[in-house]
């Protein structure tokens, strides 16, 4: 193992290289571009033996991966924000033809107005496309999750595409120490993809035939069943990864100091790191607060959320985007999970960090205080209460 000081974007690139991906499609968009640039370096230097396809749009980028995956190749691409939105049609295609693509997505705000800061509106609006979605908190988690994602995606019981997301700038452009596992170790964890070609050169086969009402529903149900199998398999894959590297990121909903907590925040991505610091500080001052990190968003970890609800007094969900006409998207999911569960603690939806706003310790503390004071559960737009100085 080698410790390197890497950006979140380079953590994606190193993971793709270690996974020995065979086909990469590349189209630039801020703040993703350095992911595919670094992979281009690996291909140019011979450190990665892969076909690197430069395309004219994100729509084509994903089509390249779908076709290559259908021929049996291990494929990777990366995008962000508007680029992901342009892929929308093909996101459905990728899951529909059961293409095990892994894609890095840098979470960036959606225009207008133009903004390149961290915001989850891009991936949240793709939640119904049949892709598995992970949200990462650190560059280490980015690297490890991409490797685990290939195992999940290509598993015969799953065969679905996976997004591994990271917050713009707070991870994409942040350099910090990352343990990069040895290639031989990764090879043991992630051997070459088992041949499973839908398309075979020289044979008359096709992707995406017309299917009438008689069988269309069967294919939808297959996809539904496949994504349901993810949580169980994730546990096994993480256990194997831990055996090789000593690291695990705690499954779909890792928790922190939630035992007997009066108030728990559910966070996604980098908000978690800051919130963990606040939990320690508030616990030291005698407040019973805890934290749960929503690491896997699709499929949604219903069971884990219901278990959490039995242990805690109140839950607040911190969302970095908004579902217009509803509340924070993660809050709606937590709410839906709780309806069918045994315990239904009061739930609040906090919107914070929209469009690249810092989620500060001060803001996180205020969210905990709101919960502890037992104020009426509602939707709080935290950013509107903060004054900020923006540099650069």
């Amino acid at each position, binding site marked *: 193992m080698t410790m390197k*000081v890497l950006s979140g974007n380079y953590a994606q690139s190193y993971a793709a290289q270690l996974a020995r991906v065979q086909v990469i499609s590349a189209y630039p968009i801020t703040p993703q571009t350095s992911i595919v640039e670094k992979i281009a370096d690996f291909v140019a230097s011979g450190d990665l033996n892969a076909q690197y396809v430069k395309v004219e749009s994100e729509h084509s980028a994903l089509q390249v991966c779908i076709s290559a995956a259908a021929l049996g190749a291990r494929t990777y691409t990366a995008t962000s924000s508007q680029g992901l939105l342009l892929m929308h049609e093909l996101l459905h295609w990728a899951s529909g033809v059961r293409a095990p693509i892994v894609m890095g997505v840098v979470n960036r705000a959606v225009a207008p107005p133009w903004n*390149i800061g961290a915001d989850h509106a891009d991936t949240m609006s793709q939640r119904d496309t049949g892709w598995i979605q992970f949200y990462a908190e650190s560059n280490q988690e980015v690297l490890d999750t991409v490797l685990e994602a290939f195992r999940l995606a290509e598993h015969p019981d799953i065969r679905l595409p996976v997004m591994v997301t990271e917050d713009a700038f707070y991870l994409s452009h942040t*350099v910090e120490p990352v343990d990069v596992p040895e290639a031989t170790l990764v090879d043991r964890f992630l051997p070459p993809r088992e041949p499973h070609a839908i398309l075979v050169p020289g044979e008359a086969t096709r992707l995406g035939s017309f299917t009438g009402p008689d069988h269309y529903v069967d294919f939808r149900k297959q996809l539904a069943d496949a994504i349901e199998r993810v949580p169980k398999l994730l546990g096994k894959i993480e256990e194997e990864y831990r055996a090789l590297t000593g690291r695990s990121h705690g499954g779909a909903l890792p928790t922190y100091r939630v035992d007997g907590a009066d108030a728990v925040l559910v966070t996604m991505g980098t908000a978690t790191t*800051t919130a963990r610091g606040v939990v320690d500080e508030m616990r030291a001052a005698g407040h019973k607060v805890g934290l749960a990190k929503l690491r896997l968003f699709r499929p949604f970890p219903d069971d884990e959320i219901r278990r959490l609800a039995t242990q805690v007094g109140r839950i607040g969900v911190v969302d970095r985007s908004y579902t217009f006409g509803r509340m924070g998207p993660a809050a709606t999911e937590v709410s839906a999970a709780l309806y069918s569960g045994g315990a239904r603690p009061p739930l609040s939806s906090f919107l914070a960090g929209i469009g690249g706003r810092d989620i500060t310790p001060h803001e996180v503390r205020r969210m905990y205080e709101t919960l502890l004071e037992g104020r009426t559960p509602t939707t709080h737009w935290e950013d509107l209460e903060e004054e*900020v100085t923006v*540099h650069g």
Partner: protein
Amino acid sequence: MIEIRFHGRGGQGGVVASELLAQAAFLDGKIPQSFPFFGVERRGAPVTAYSRIDDRPIALRTSITAPHVVVVLDPGLLATERVTDGLKPGGLLLVNTTHAPETLAAPGGVRRAAVDATHIALAHGLGTAMLPIVNTAVLGALARATEVVSLEALSRAVEQFVPARPEENRLAARDGYLGVRTVDGTAGPSVPLPTSPRVAGPSLPEGPMASLSSERIHTAAWRTFTPVIHLDRCTKCNFCWKFCPDDAIEFDAVGFPKLRLEYCKGCGICAAECPPKTIEMVAEV
């Protein structure tokens, strides 16, 4: 934990400076976290980068609003950016400037340091006169003025991670280390972290497109070099007007190009494209 904020312009190497500092701090056995924030991705646009250095994992992922150290890579930014916002009492302001540190304006109690990184960079052939790459010289100065990182670790980081001219960059870091001058802060009140007054939501236009125009945004503050057009040799070919990315060239009554200096960022594209080479880029300071 030490928090450092870098202010530079796109292309000067401020982002790389914060990354190199992280690499060097890691070689010193510390845990670093460095990242930039930028808005407009253009050469010359103001860019901010942040570094945190600690002995243990950093439980914070926000920008830095109350730094211990502020590093300014371009002295021109002192006039246009509020670089000392939030700078902690007892902290340090380090500026790339030809002037003495005593001349630097800083909140009371803040130490001031000056290094002529531009000349050091140019002496080692780093960048061009229009855009010297000053980051390694500035980092050398930072190592001396703060001791957040050792010169030895910085030199090793430069050798390992600077993609071009590592030896010249290592020497620039050494010269920055040797050339920095630091003076104590002036007596006076420390300035608390100011915040921009928030424009209340309801007073914003409905939708972000209303009544905004780049005509109203004067970007001349980005400029470090000004084009001077020698009309005696101008052929009125209009190439400067065609290639100017900022529409900063118009024509006078007889068809000669005329600068709209309030929009010129000094990118030098007009000078490069002008067929008879009648445009000269002249340093502003």
